[in-house]
């Protein structure tokens, strides 16, 4: 991979991010009430005060100028203040990011460690009972509504069996590792389910492709064991597309936690988003949307770069 490619790909991110910010800006300004919706509904804010706020925020200026100023301040790291709490948006998000990264990281590890063996087994035992059963399960995994699954797990493991806490981040007063793990267990499983299903199906498909290659037959003919061929010869090839899918979806695990965090009262940025929706806290909402989109864009970029790095056959020029 040439540095020129890397540079061009990096530069391509800029117009994409500008496009995203423009689209979000248009959406916010099309909405009834606009960015000050929270104040419009508030009976204690008089029309005169509203007009003053408008001027103070620069919302009386022409839209293109507003957009330009908004992007400029975003780029300078001035993300504004939360309407609900009055604290800087960046503090508001930083306080919540840790919980989301913990949950997302746990879900990611869980997804990888389940999807890899399932993908390999189903490809190796193609058309067997195992394959059919696991394929059925992965269809179920992508079809089950996560909020319902979460409720059912709360009912089974917390309410009926009493094994795990119903929801929350920690037990007040005890902050041990075990306590955190017990709180993490159900949300992490729920969050990883769809990824396990999708990834194992994807890996199965690329394993089946890889197993159909001539060099696999050669490896068998030379007397390699089945395990050796599967792992050393097929998996190494099948992993190439798999790695790109995984790196692309890292971002969506993080931003996909909206439902899971809400059901399990997990104090991450997904829940912050829903709370800010309730309070029409546009500065926070916009910041989260921009961050989530930027994460997606960067993950796509990372996927491209990683693919080029690990597969010497790939040449971008």
């Amino acid at each position, binding site marked *: 991979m040439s540095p020129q490619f890397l540079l061009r790909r990096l530069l391509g991110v800029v*117009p*994409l991010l500008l*496009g*995203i910010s423009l*689209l*979000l800006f248009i*959406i*916010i300004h*099309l*909405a*009834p009430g606009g960015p000050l*919706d929270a104040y419009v509904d508030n009976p204690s804010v008089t029309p005169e005060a509203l007009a003053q706020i408008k001027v103070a925020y620069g919302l009386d200026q022409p839209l293109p100028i507003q957009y330009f100023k908004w992007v400029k301040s975003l780029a300078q790291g001035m993300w504004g203040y939360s309407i609900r709490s009055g604290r800087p948006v960046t503090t508001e998000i930083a306080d919540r990011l840790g919980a989301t990264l913990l949950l997302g990281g746990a879900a990611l590890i869980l997804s990888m460690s389940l999807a890899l063996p399932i993908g390999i087994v189903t490809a190796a035992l193609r058309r067997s009972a195992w394959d*059919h059963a696991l394929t059925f399960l992965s*269809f*179920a995994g*992508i*079809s*089950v*509504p*996560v*909020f*319902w*699954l979460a*409720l*059912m797990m*709360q*009912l089974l493991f917390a*309410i009926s069996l009493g094994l795990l806490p119903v929801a929350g981040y920690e037990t007040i007063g005890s902050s041990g590792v075990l306590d955190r793990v017990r709180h993490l267990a159900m949300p992490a499983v729920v969050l990883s389910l769809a990824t396990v299903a999708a990834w194992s199906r994807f890996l199965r498909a690329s394993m089946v492709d890889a197993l159909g290659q001539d060099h696999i037959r050669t490896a068998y003919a030379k007397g390699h064991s089945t395990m050796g061929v599967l792992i050393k010869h097929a998996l190494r090839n099948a992993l190439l597309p798999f790695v790109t899918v995984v790196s692309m979806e890292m*971002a*969506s695990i993080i*931003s*996909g936690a*909206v*439902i899971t965090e*809400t*059901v399990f009262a997990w104090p991450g940025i997904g829940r912050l*988003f*829903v709370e800010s*929706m309730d309070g*029409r806290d546009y500065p926070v*909402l916009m910041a*989260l*949307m921009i961050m*989530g*989109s930027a994460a*997606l*864009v960067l993950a*796509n970029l990372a996927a491209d770069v990683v693919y080029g790095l690990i597969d010497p056959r790939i040449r971008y020029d």
Partner: protein
Amino acid sequence: MTENRGALSLIFLIVLAALVCVVPMISPYEYDQEDLDLIGQPSPPGRAHWFGTDELGQDSLTRVFYGGRISLAVGLASALVATLLGTTVGALAGFFGGLIDGVLMRFTDVVLSIPLLPLVLLLSGLFRPGLAMLVMSIGGLTWMGTARVVRSQFLSLRELEFVDAARALGAGNGRLIVRHILPNAAAPIIVSATLAVGSSIMLESALSFLGFGVQPPTPTWGNLLKDASPWIGAAPWLALPPGLLIFATVLAVNFLGDGLRETLEISR
């Protein structure tokens, strides 16, 4: 089993559609009829109320199937919007290429780069939508996959000789796109339209579950689950039917889509 999955799923979906039409009609209760004797907390399933009642004394069975009408209708309509939009964008980009292709595909990239669920949440929160607006925002944000598929079909199909032949006979661009190329791209469009029904139903129920979709007293599977969730310990029977129905419906749609893909791809 794999061969029959699609057919069985189709039968299931037809039966389900019939049930959501018929059950609310023959049920002795209205979907928003509150029984004042049962108000206060949910009552368990019994002879009078097969699925029990919620805390307002509303019959759960009636609400689940009436809600099914809304959930299925929103899912179908959103998928239709997404398919129409995606096909239009993909067809224009793939047929004309050049600047039109560049602009449309960059726009597709932009929409694809914004996390879907938060964006739909933002839209429904901003516009406090009715059903039509909800359908528009779900369909309006899920067309990108179809657009990419249709574009790639058009890119390869437009180079084929039958297109030249039709053009030589005097067919204009509109006619070439709609009458000649589009029918040949039908298979992947049908598959992605089918799968879109499943993801739209899922998206609508997620929105309604979080409180930003269809508002009570109009039930959908999503807001029935939202209402059931505070009672999950005391009245688990309320959460079971709507969740199972979303699950079964989306599963059936996914099996159907997968079956269609295999059948249509083999026949090509």
